[in-house]
């Protein structure tokens, strides 16, 4: 009987040792080697068992006489391997993840104003690739670095009449196919306080509700109806959960800079004001409703003058400013039904400077105004609405596909310049008129590979450049697309 108990202990010893080794993680094997029969730590079950084995070894030898030594050797070896893994883990400072997208689309225009006379046109087969490499480094528990490098290019060589600007790389294909720093910022959580400071190239584009269409989770700070461009700046965030009792509530102050002078030449043509954005925002989970977002913000943004065209005689230091008030409400997976819904509204009050950019031919132009219509210096009001829903079909054999429907409206003076990050060639949120989108998401591999097919219709009431008096339009744009998203 005694011998059977002893044997069962010997049999269990390696298993228990391995379990403890895995749970303690490091060092155990070395300690054991240096001190085979520790006295102070003698209460550890595995050590106790090993010690019992040593004592009993002289009284009643085990079937395999050298088993404890073999066990120690195995523990030493495992410990050594764990040390190697731990070292690698410690040195692995940056976590990488990626997103890759290939997109095929057809764009058709009806009554497009490419020239003075409206005409139809199309681009029947446009292929593009988009790559995003996401980086994260937990420098300390309260200091976190985030980065995103992105690449967006049409296949092969291509003609495209828009050059990407500093803030529009995610949506304007780059002819050279270069890797661009879309995000690089630090989240600094001040210890012992609910305050954090975020600075650098901010998580500014691709915000709610884009994650619904992209079949992912929230990827940015503010809703796309407020701002969907890249931005450099500082955000101070105050977590309010414990102060006001609203779950996931936060108050933010934002300061961004879109254009700044290295050197000003007073009185010369290069003299213009820096372009800043400043604002305050409050967000919270809607009371009593999980997976929801309620957002309220006010932002003032400077407006830059038109200055990069031939024939310009002079331009003002500033074109004015825009005050933007945004409310966004979103419910994800309402009551576990698989239905998501969002609604957003933005009002913009545009205060224009009394003078615009003057050309050699005497034409003076400003945002949505010119000297022919006599609207330069006016105060312009604009409104935008964006709403939609997405539903997860209860079809397990198709891996739960999703369908979505979106609608947005932009008024005559709607400023679509703040929208671009969705990775689409066409910016439907800039439509001054009505736009609709219907899409279907087919998961190919859960959380890894998705296929999306969709159609977008943009029914324009006005179609004209940002600078100049808005021109009424009957133009319609149809965009059919098919894309594959892979995350890794």
């Amino acid at each position, binding site marked *: 009987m005694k011998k059977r108990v002893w044997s069962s202990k010997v049999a269990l010893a390696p298993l228990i040792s391995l379990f403890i080794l895995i749970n303690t993680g490091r060092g155990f094997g070395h300690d054991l080697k240096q001190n085979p029969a520790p006295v102070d730590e003698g209460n550890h079950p595995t050590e106790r068992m090993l010690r019992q084995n040593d004592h009993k070894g002289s009284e009643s030898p085990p079937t395999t006489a050298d088993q404890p030594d073999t066990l120690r050797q195995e523990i030493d070896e495992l410990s050594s391997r764990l040390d190697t893994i731990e070292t690698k883990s410690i040195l692995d400072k940056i976590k990488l993840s990626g997103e890759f997208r290939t997109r095929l689309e057809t764009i058709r225009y009806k009554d497009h104003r490419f020239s003075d006379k409206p005409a139809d046109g199309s681009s029947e087969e446009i292929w593009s690739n988009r790559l995003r490499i996401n980086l994260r480094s937990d420098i300390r528990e309260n200091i976190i670095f985030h980065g995103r490098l992105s690449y967006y290019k049409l296949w092969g060589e291509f003609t495209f009449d828009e050059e990407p600007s500093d803030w529009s790389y995610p949506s304007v294909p780059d002819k050279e196919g270069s890797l661009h720093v879309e995000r690089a910022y630090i989240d600094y*959580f001040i210890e012992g306080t609910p305050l954090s400071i975020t600075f650098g190239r901010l998580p500014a584009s691709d915000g709610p509700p884009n994650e619904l269409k992209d079949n992912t989770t*929230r990827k*940015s700070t503010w809703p796309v109806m407020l701002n969907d461009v890249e931005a450099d700046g500082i955000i101070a965030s105050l977590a309010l959960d414990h102060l006001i009792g609203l779950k996931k509530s936060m108050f933010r102050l934002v300061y961004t800079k879109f254009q700044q002078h290295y050197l000003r030449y007073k009185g010369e043509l290069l003299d213009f004001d820096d372009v800043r954005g400043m604002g305050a925002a409050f967000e919270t989970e*809607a009371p009593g*409703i999980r997976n929801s977002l309620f957002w309220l913000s006010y932002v003032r943004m400077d407006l830059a003058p038109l200055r990069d065209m031939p024939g310009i005689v002079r331009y003002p230091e500033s074109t004015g400013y825009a005050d933007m008030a945004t409310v966004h409400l979103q*419910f994800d997976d309402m*009551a576990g039904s698989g239905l998501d819904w969002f609604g957003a509204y933005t009002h913009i009050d545009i205060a224009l400077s009394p003078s615009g950019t003057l050309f050699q031919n005497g034409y003076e132009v400003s945002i949505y105004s010119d000297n022919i219509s006599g609207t330069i210096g006016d105060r312009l009001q604009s409104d935008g*609405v964006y709403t939609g829903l997405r539903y997860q079909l209860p079809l397990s054999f198709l891996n739960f596909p999703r369908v979505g429907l979106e609608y947005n409206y932009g008024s005559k003076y709607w400023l679509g310049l703040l929208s671009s990050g969705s990775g689409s060639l066409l910016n439907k949120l800039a439509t001054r008129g009505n736009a609709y989108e219907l899409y279907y998401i087919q998961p190919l591999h859960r959380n890894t590979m998705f296929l999306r097919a969709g159609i977008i219709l943009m029914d324009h009431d006005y179609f004209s450049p940002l600078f100049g008096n808005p021109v009424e339009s009957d133009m319609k744009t149809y965009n059919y697309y098919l894309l594959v998203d892979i995350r890794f």
Partner: protein
Amino acid sequence: MPPFVPKTILRAILLTALIWVAAGLGAAVEMDGEILFSNKCGACHANGKRAPAIAPVKFAAIQWERFFYREKHQRKQDIRKLITPEERSTIQRYLMEHAADSDRPIAAGMK
């Protein structure tokens, strides 16, 4: 003045309120994994309590799946009287959906 003001805005506000109420009513009857995890697991697993604090990001999704499949908690502590099988499934789903390798939300000031 845009063409939909003010009647359309009023309708939109009413619709939003209805959706809000519907979402709220539905949320009340649905089991919330986060709350279950906080209440049930957090009863023991918290700083200063009998077991160390845990968070979904402690493991990757596949590790959580293995943890539950192999009933690893049972080896240390039998909690079957404390958590029903439905609650266990909800907690497992919550942990896997918020695991270390899950798609985590990103915004300024969010960990």
